[in-house]
């Protein structure tokens, strides 16, 4: 079964069938006219051979639709370039042992949702004791001293706190973003750090649902973690990076 990487289509139950499943509501009375409207709307999305598999009344002049259709569009996989943080995640115990044995002291992490962002769900998933999806957050790790500063933290305050607690890592979370305000905010943080000559002192990490590693690098961060990241991935990355940095520095001083 040869897959044509230049023409990747959606897969329903056969290669290249392009089958897509949609569900949505319309502010339209339920009935044949609504079904037809749903069909036409899906057609305007470029789908073909449409079938309104199910529709129902939602009351108050609304109706709900489940529609299937073929999507003729395809994607050229060979033209897509994505960079990711490459971490072979260790587990909770391995990470603590790694830090204890290789670095010899607990690592200090300061995390915050910066700027106007009030959504701490991502930050909490990584930092809180409870963690996320069964994985403990950094606060639970004996080898991490984690400071969760919460939401809407101005960049200067974040930097001030990082200096105060002698942080190894600054962790920034950006969840909700309007008009790309998060980009400005992240750039501003990097500029402030550089202006004060502090950029090299911290491992600088950003995470969030619309963050990619590639974008983080462009903005001047050391790493970016996208949606679905679990605490051990971040913890492993931090431990390994700091260990690598130490070796590099001690190598230098030895010369």
């Amino acid at each position, binding site marked *: 079964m040869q897959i044509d990487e230049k023409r990747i289509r959606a897969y329903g*139950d056969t290669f290249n069938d392009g089958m897509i499943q949609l569900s949505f509501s319309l502010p339209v009375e339920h009935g044949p006219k609504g079904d037809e409207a749903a069909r036409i709307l899906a057609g305007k999305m470029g789908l073909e051979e449409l079938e309104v598999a*199910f529709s129902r009344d939602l009351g108050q002049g609304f109706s709900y639709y*489940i529609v*299937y259709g073929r999507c003729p569009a395809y994607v050229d996989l060979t033209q897509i370039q994505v960079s990711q943080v490459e971490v072979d995640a260790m587990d909770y115990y391995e990470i603590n042992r790694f830090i204890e044995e290789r670095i010899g002291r607990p690592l200090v992490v300061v995390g915050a949702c910066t700027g106007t962002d009030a959504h701490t769900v991502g930050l909490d998933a990584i930092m809180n004791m409870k963690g996320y999806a069964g994985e403990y957050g950094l606060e639970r790790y004996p080898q991490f001293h984690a400071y969760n500063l919460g939401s809407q933290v101005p960049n200067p305050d974040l930097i001030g706190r990082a200096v105060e607690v002698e942080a190894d890592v600054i962790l920034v979370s950006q969840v909700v973003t309007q008009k790309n305000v998060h980009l400005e905010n992240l750039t501003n943080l990097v500029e402030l750090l550089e202006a004060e000559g502090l950029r090299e002192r911290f491992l600088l990490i950003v995470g969030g649902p619309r963050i990619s590693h590639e974008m983080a690098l462009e903005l001047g961060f050391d790493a970016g973690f996208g949606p679905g990241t679990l605490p051990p991935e971040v913890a492993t990355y931090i431990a390994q990076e700091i260990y690598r940095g130490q070796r590099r520095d001690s190598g230098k001083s030895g010369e």
Partner: protein
Amino acid sequence: MEKKLNLDQEKIERARRAAASVAEGVMEEIKPRTTVAVERTILRLLGVDGIDEAEIPLPNVLVEKLHAVQALPCGVAHWMGRTILATGKNPQEIAREVAEGNLDLLDQPLYSNEEIRGALEPYVREGLEWIREQRRRRAKFLETLGTGPRPLLYVIVATGDIYEDVIQAKSAAEQGADIVAVIRSTAQSLLDYVPYGATREGFGGTFATQENFRIMRQGLDEIGEEIGRYIYLVNYCSGLAMPEIAAMGALERLDMMLNDAMYGILFRDINMQRTFIDQHFSRMINGYAGIIINTGEDNYLTTADPYEAAHTVLASQFINEQLGLRSGLANEQLGLGHAFELDPDKEDGWLLEVAQAQMAREIFPEAPLKYMPPTKYMTGDIFKTHLVDGMFNLAGVLTGQEIQLLGMLTEAIHTPHIHDRTMAIDNARYIMNNARHLGEEIFFKPEGRIQKRAQQVLDEALEMLGKISELGLPRAINEGWFGGISRAPKGGKGLEGVVEKEENYFNPFMEEMSGEREGSPHAD
């Protein structure tokens, strides 16, 4: 297993005795007859395979030639044995030459019955030894790899292309499926032959061919080794070529085969005499090969009202059990079917489903019950269907079902998309794991809704079986007692393929499998 329904054991025994007498009546119809399909199966087990220039399978070519001149009453084995003695050739060479017109099975010298049996014996032994070898392999796999927890999760693939089926089957196994069934191409059951070779196009399914069986078996063995779990393979042992497919399944190590006493008669309009005869030999082969049959009682509920007709399911389970035992199947091979088909909008409907499923569990304690998902009232509202499937899964784990055919959220829309299967498996794994031992924790209130419903269904099934044992199964079917469908004893397809046996007729495989001959090596 603790009994929770307070069912009257004496009524269960009476129902079983009534079903036994129904089954005896059917056996009387079977014994004096054979069919073209049974005779083709004998040839396949003797090693005859392949097709002629017109792409007609060689077993069909030979059997049709004999049937055309009424030479089948003494059985194809008789003619083949004589030809082996006269030519010194093996069955496959003989079949090839007959198909090419260079040899005539009928134009051979006479030999004694002893000589004929002697000539066939090495081929009979070889065929049976291979089936036993496959049985040993399965046992070894089950021992080394093991299987998932019960209920086993059963999913379906049906792309029409056997190679793509393998990809989807492997994907499903990786996601957590334990059993993979390959749906057959529409109406294959009406073909009076088995298509040949690997096939890449079908209609709503993939043709059941021996090569396709082999390809899928290999794929499932590969993924099974990889994920450390034996994956069961299922196909359909039904229709006009039923026993041939049983033989192919035995040779290629299928683990389960759909094989219902009445499905073909009712839903495919295949002649009932033809079905009963073909089925008896099919089940003997299944039994010998260690294959679990899946019966199809769920189907009655798709045409009849699931609430009103619940007792017909139980009655049919009793009949399938008694017929199966008489064909040499062990209780552990009787995957008796039933279904979760009540209208989901019915108040307390889930309680009634639990009553029915628990009742089947208690009445057939050793049978690996096959539980079928909701289909009849599914509308295309995929989210609701997914939820109803969850309730079905909860009923399955609660009542100790063994084979859970997973409902698909896109039921009533299309054959499952690849992710539909994954969502179905996730649904089942979550619920069954989360409620794994619920059944051990729960008793039902004496004379409560659940107990009363089970007792009522048993009473109705007992009454029905009593009447059927008076009428005989053919008349009961004729009067539309199952699925509300009526079929006449002389009606339906395939009657022309039924043959009255002569006195010296013999089927060497049936003799060996039933242990009729002394010293026959039994399966382990």
